[in-house]
């Protein structure tokens, strides 16, 4: 025991002193080890920063980018991009009038698409929307990934097709999430306002959703939740730069993070992808901020690897 305590101990009964000495001795075992690999990673960052400060500034790119996901700052430039895209289209329109348009939101960014009928579609990072330049008959678009639709009222039905489902509406606002790859391969529609009909590609059945309801199409099932406007708001959390998953596989979550921040995240071992978790993070500043939260919650470790992150199980 430290000699500084001698004075305090001198008045105590011998038994008490022995007890404290024992506590001192035993508590040595609570030293926490720090993995050498962790320290190596820190050192690598330090050396990189000292040797090439500009390069590491550039590495901070995704962090800078995410601020643009704040909708107030983001949507205006995005509209300008839409305008720019429109002007560009004008120049080459004649040749391609009848070809459908494909728009993909770049990784690390969201994009807004204005359709000819006045409807708007906000695409989450990496999502692709394909639509005809002019709607004739029905208004039919197809979506890969996640998007929020604000559909103008019209007598012509508006139909969103995904890899396994179709959503038919007249005029409404709703969120569609339809990533085909991975364990959560499903089309998930969260209805904010209006009315939609949801049908699985392989079933004759159709369900009607009312505001607040979430409908999900998986391999062979078609189901709708109880009306819950909170869930619908959460489904749109990405539009404000938040991350919200109420119960999702780690794999799907990390795919989302990777798309949003334009980075790569690998899991070691791979079967960690099936771990389910809840995650709610308010406007995370970087992919690393989310990765940190995840490893902390699940008791895992992570390290930086070239241009991305690796999450791994300790021991």
């Amino acid at each position, binding site marked *: *025991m*430290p000699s*500084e*305590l001698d*004075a*305090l101990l001198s008045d105590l009964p011998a038994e008490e002193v022995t*007890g*404290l000495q*024992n*506590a*001192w*001795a*035993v*508590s*040595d*075992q*609570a*030293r*926490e*080890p*720090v993995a050498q690999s*962790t*320290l190596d*990673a*820190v*050192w690598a*960052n*330090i050396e990189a*920063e*000292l040797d090439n400060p500009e390069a590491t500034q550039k590495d901070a790119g995704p962090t800078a980018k995410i601020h643009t996901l704040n909708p107030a700052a983001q949507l205006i430039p995005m509209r300008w991009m839409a305008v720019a895209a429109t002007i560009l289209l004008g120049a080459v329109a004649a040749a391609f009038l009848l070809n459908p348009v494909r728009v993909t939101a770049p990784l690390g960014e969201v994009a807004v698409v204005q359709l000819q009928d006045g409807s708007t579609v906000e695409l989450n990072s990496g999502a692709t929307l394909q639509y005809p330049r002019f709607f004739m008959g029905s208004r039919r678009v197809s979506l890969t990934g996640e998007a929020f639709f604000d559909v103008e009222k019209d007598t012509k039905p508006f139909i969103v097709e995904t890899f396994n489902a179709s959503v038919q509406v007249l005029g409404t606002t709703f969120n569609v999430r339809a990533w085909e790859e991975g364990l959560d391969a499903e089309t998930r529609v969260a209805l904010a306002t209006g009315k939609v009909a949801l049908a699985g590609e392989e079933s004759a059945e159709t369900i009607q959703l009312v505001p607040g309801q979430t409908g999900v199409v998986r391999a062979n099932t078609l189901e709708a939740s109880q009306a819950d406007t*909170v869930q619908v*708001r959460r489904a749109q959390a990405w539009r404000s730069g*938040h991350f919200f998953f*109420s119960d999702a596989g780690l794999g799907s979550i990390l795919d989302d993070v990777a798309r949003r921040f334009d980075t790569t995240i690998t899991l070691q071992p791979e079967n960690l992808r099936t771990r389910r*978790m*809840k*995650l*709610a*993070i*308010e406007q995370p500043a970087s992919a*690393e*901020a989310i990765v*940190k*939260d995840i*490893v*902390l*919650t699940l*008791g895992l470790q*992570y390290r930086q690897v070239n241009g991305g992150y690796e999450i791994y199980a300790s021991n």
Partner: protein
Amino acid sequence: MEGSMGENVKPVNRFKVWASQLRDSDRGAYAAVFQDMSAQLVRYAKTITRDEASACDVIQDVFLKLWEIRERIKPESSLHALLYTMTRNAAINMNRKRAPMVYQQADGEDVFDQALAGKSTASDAVLEANRLAARLHAWIDELPERRREAFVLSRHHDLSHKEISNIMGLSERTVNTHIFLALKHLRSRLDALQNDNITL
């Protein structure tokens, strides 16, 4: 049951040499200081930030700062103590800056709270409950913040009470009291454990 000799011997001379080499911008000495101190500084930062990833960020910042100020390191002051002080300040700053990570919504559902609860190390501690080290961790965690910090610096960093008082900006008397009360707390936990006839 003292720590190993290597950890108990205060390598004052080595630090003096490193300090003067650092003033001459010696990257080798810089690497040697990192190799020598990074593990324990990460551990110390972690007692304040409570998670290792943030603690690593803190240490990265501390070492970058150290390189920035290398020419102004005073020969007569201790580099060893300087690193502890810098680590403490950086870790406390990080806690201040850190935005609340989990967002609350007016609807009062507790999913967010659950997400928060998932971050607690309590569940890990329960899993390892049979191991004394895990119990000790939990007991040390029960201590009030500054008492925990003072105790960890004393027990796991082998610092004198005078050094701790300098780093934490407390009087030596207060440090004595913190360490004494921390030991009493651990002792009472150990007694309770033994009275329950649980083998350690």
